[in-house]
């Protein structure tokens, strides 16, 4: 299974994990990202580039499948308005062994943050502002390029 979904609606991490488990392999790793309420943020709005975003995520899944021995990969990213505490992103990998599942999962979320065309706009006390890209995210993503 290799599946990429961009959607407005919420997803159920338990249900998605069960779909990975249905592959009957030894290890599942998942990551779920939520909207943080830092600095008085009460809402986020996620924008993407229809077409390129899907294509980029598919390419990252293909790269993960080539680098690690994973049998299933599932990537879900939400777009549109999101309140604090809501789920934004889900990454799930299934493998015979934990190291491959965990590393492929970390690779996917780190590279998604720097490579996939999504943009966050946050609202703080009624004022909207675009979120700036972080150098720490570039560093996390780059560690997968050198190895």
């Amino acid at each position, binding site marked *: 299974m290799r599946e990429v979904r961009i959607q407005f609606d919420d997803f159920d991490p338990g249900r998605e994990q069960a779909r990975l488990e249905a592959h009957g392999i030894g290890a599942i790793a998942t990551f779920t990202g939520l909207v943080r309420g830092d600095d008085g943020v009460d809402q986020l709005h996620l924008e993407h*580039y229809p077409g*390129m975003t899907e294509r980029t995520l598919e390419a990252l899944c293909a790269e993960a499948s080539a680098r690690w021995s994973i049998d299933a990969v599932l990537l879900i990213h939400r777009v549109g308005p999101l309140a604090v505490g809501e789920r934004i992103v889900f990454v799930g990998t299934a493998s015979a062994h934990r190291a491959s599942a965990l590393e492929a999962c970390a690779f996917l979320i780190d590279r998604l943050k720097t490579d996939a065309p999504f*943009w966050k706009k946050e609202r703080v006390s009624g004022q909207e502002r675009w979120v700036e890209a972080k150098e720490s995210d570039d560093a996390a993503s780059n560690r997968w390029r050198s190895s």
Partner: protein
Amino acid sequence: MPVTILYFAHVRELVGLSSESVHLPPDIHTVADLADWLAKRSDGHAAAFVDPSRLRVALDQIMSCFDQPLDGALEIAFFPPVTGG
């Protein structure tokens, strides 16, 4: 042949358009040439392209750079550094 220019996020807001179709003059070869030419279309465009180091570009949905040739791309997108996940 017309090419489609797409703008996203902060760049879209500054330009005031999400897309436009343009006929490129023959002296536009690189992404940087195109950015300089687009910047002259309106005050909004000028504001969006004032600092290319803060922009990213994709040619036919593949990430590229300002010094790269357009190479016949038909869909060219400008946007800020990405912030998903």
